[in-house]
């Protein structure tokens, strides 16, 4: 029998509702609440421990919560870590994703969860773990638990994991080739698949592309600024330049945070007071001279020459590597709000 540890929030852990959402993490031997159902639904795996943590506690102290839970797991023997199902509960979904990712990184065991497609945890974590598509609310508990249980049994038996569409998890951004016969499908030649697809497309029938093209969220390039002397310009970057101590704890990859830093007294960004925390490029040049990423020195020179009007007091920064399109769009909107408040009408956006 393989061993699983199950993570649930304060509500399903029978501690209480919203008023108990600050509940600090605990670990119980055996099952609590839905982990009993999970335990009973698995044939090859049993739940040995249940971790319970309040959603708010995880949301407001993620590092603290994660490190406490990881130390609780230290020394325990387990073959997999299962979190949720979290349904449509956003903080719960994010908590499941956060803890699963951390457990996988530390203990290198399979981790998986279940969430509704609209749970923000899906977009944030589907690239990191198997998240099964679940119902909107707890009335789907049985169905969602059963999906997790059968996947757990599959892992326990060492069976091959099939594509997302067959297993029912959200695609993780990974594509591999497969023989149709290995998926239990008719081994239809590509020639026949292409002609059948074309006939369907020509006759207005539904067809399924084998390579879905992600929807592009293109932004038209803005018209050129007519007179640079009449505008306020801001510097924005996804190149991860921050004050040395990275006061806002912007992540080095898969960022969800951005920062704004006052440079009104500076003519250039000095090193090592400023540096990059971006994990996606060689930092040597940027650490030596942060102005190669955030060109404060150049824009000040233009300002002195009278070629541009005003420079914003702040520069705005985040990290672009591994950052999801969803997170990037959210941060972009937030930064744009700030820029508008400060009367900025043109931006130099540097990427790396």
């Amino acid at each position, binding site marked *: 029998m393989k061993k699983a540890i199950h993570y649930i929030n304060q509500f399903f852990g029978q501690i209480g509702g919203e008023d108990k959402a600050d509940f600090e993490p605990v670990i119980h031997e055996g099952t609590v609440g839905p982990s009993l159902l999970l335990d009973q639904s698995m044939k090859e795996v049993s739940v040995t421990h249940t971790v319970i943590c309040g959603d708010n506690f995880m949301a407001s102290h993620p590092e603290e919560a994660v490190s406490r839970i990881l130390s609780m797991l230290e020394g325990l023997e387990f073959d997999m870590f299962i979190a949720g199902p979290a349904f449509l509960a956003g903080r719960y979904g994010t908590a499941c994703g956060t803890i699963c990712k951390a457990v996988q990184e530390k203990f290198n065991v399979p981790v998986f969860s279940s969430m509704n497609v609209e749970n923000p945890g899906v977009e944030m974590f589907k690239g990191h773990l198997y998240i099964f598509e679940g119902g909107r609310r707890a009335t789907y508990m049985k169905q969602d638990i059963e999906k997790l249980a059968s996947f757990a049994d599959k892992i326990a038996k060492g069976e091959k994991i099939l594509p997302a569409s067959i297993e029912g998890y959200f695609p993780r951004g990974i594509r591999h080739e497969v023989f149709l016969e290995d998926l239990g499908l008719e*081994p239809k030649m590509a020639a026949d698949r292409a002609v059948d697809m074309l006939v369907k497309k020509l006759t207005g029938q539904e067809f399924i592309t084998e390579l879905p093209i992600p929807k592009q969220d293109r932004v038209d390039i803005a018209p050129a600024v007519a007179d640079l002397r009449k505008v306020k310009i801001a510097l924005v970057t996804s190149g991860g330049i921050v004050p040395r101590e990275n006061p806002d704890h912007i992540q080095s990859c898969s960022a969800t945070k951005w920062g704004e830093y006052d440079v009104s007294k500076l003519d250039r960004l000095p090193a090592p007071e400023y540096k990059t925390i971006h994990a996606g490029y060689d930092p040597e040049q940027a650490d030596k001279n942060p102005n190669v990423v955030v060109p404060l020195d150049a824009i000040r020179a233009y300002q002195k020459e009278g070629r541009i009007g005003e420079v914003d007091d702040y520069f705005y920064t985040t990290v672009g590597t591994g950052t999801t399109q969803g997170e990037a769009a959210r941060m972009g909107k937030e930064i744009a709000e700030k820029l508008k408040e400060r009367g900025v009408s043109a931006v130099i956006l540097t990427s790396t």
Partner: protein
Amino acid sequence: MKLEIGKFFVKDIVFGDETAYNNGILTINKEEALQVVMEDSHMTEADLHIVRPGDEVRLVPVKDAFEMRCKVSGSEGVYPGCTSPVAPVGFGRTHALAGCSLLVVGKHWGSFQDGLIDMSGPAQRNTIYGLMPNLVLVGDTDEEFERREQQKKNKALRWAGMRLSEYVGRCVKDMTPESIETWDLEPVNRRTSEVQQLPSVVYVAQPQTQMEAMGYNTLVYGWDGNHMLPTFMHPNEILDGAVVSGSFMPVSSKISTYEWVNNPTVKRLMKEHGKTINFLGVIMSNLNVVMEEKIRSANMVARMALNLGADGAIVAEEGYGNPDVDYIQTIVELENVGIKTVGLSNECTGRDGASQPLVALDEKATALVSSGNVSQIHELPPMKTVLGELESLARDGLSGGWEGCVREDGSIIMENNAMFCADHISGFSVKTCADF
């Protein structure tokens, strides 16, 4: 234009006194066959072997595959412009030894476009040649100028393969075929109104033609495809030897000469003609390096399809990476003029599967068939016999091999990139790619 392909279904190949076909058995007179191979003074040595599905045999470096066939009527040679004078094909009668192939293998030296075939074991099914009996020519040449080049024209071996396939094919020239496939397609403006009411479709072939130097690219009637603009062809020309595979593309993306004449997408479109579609014919395009050339070809394909009255198109790209731009651009241009289009090619998602599958993407490419992933890793056990030289996979710059990928015990680790024609972009592929 009407073409008959008379088929002789080969169950097994053996060596014997006379090159002849009898009741499913193809017999090869080895000495006579090797004389045909050695007609070219650039061939320095050659030997013939027979491999069958289930044999513990690994072939590498495989240069090309041919169907053994001959022309009976209509014109003279099987490969016009290459091993016979330029002449039209696609009509009259051709006889073919079906269900088997001739594989051409370098005795020592491999190149970027060469590949590997296993006749048994886990990778047997990865290439159609693992599933049929094959006559195998293993040879070496005096082409010193390219001996240590990663890119090789492989001319002597490829031409030897064409001569040999025609020599063997001629043994059934005067026999009565076991079955006859008839491919008949009337001129586009001479079709019945019933046929013309069906949606009209073109097949757009993008053979690999990106080498600026001559001698490496796909040949159309012997003409280097790099010097071609998109042109209109009858499907029968494709099925009758007008196209000969080149010597350039990483091999899982290659369309072998065998696969050009057996192209299952063209055949299926011919079968659908008059039933669900009006098959207008083939637009033979190309693949280019320079952006302007890519755009020119894509525009010309779309214009040609539009003015032929096409409602739909299938675009097949022989390659991946840089030519994905030509592939997507052509699909987009066709969609831009209102032609509903399906693409057929492979992907390159990287060893972790996380890379963008095509170099270029566009939302207008709504219908894509995926025939494999060049980056898939194969770890394969040793085989008792190797035809060719196993070390070539690691030493000679084969696209899916690298230094150290061949182990002392003969086991290998490689990328699908070097599996011979494994993504079968001609349409034979029974693989797809899926999200994990």
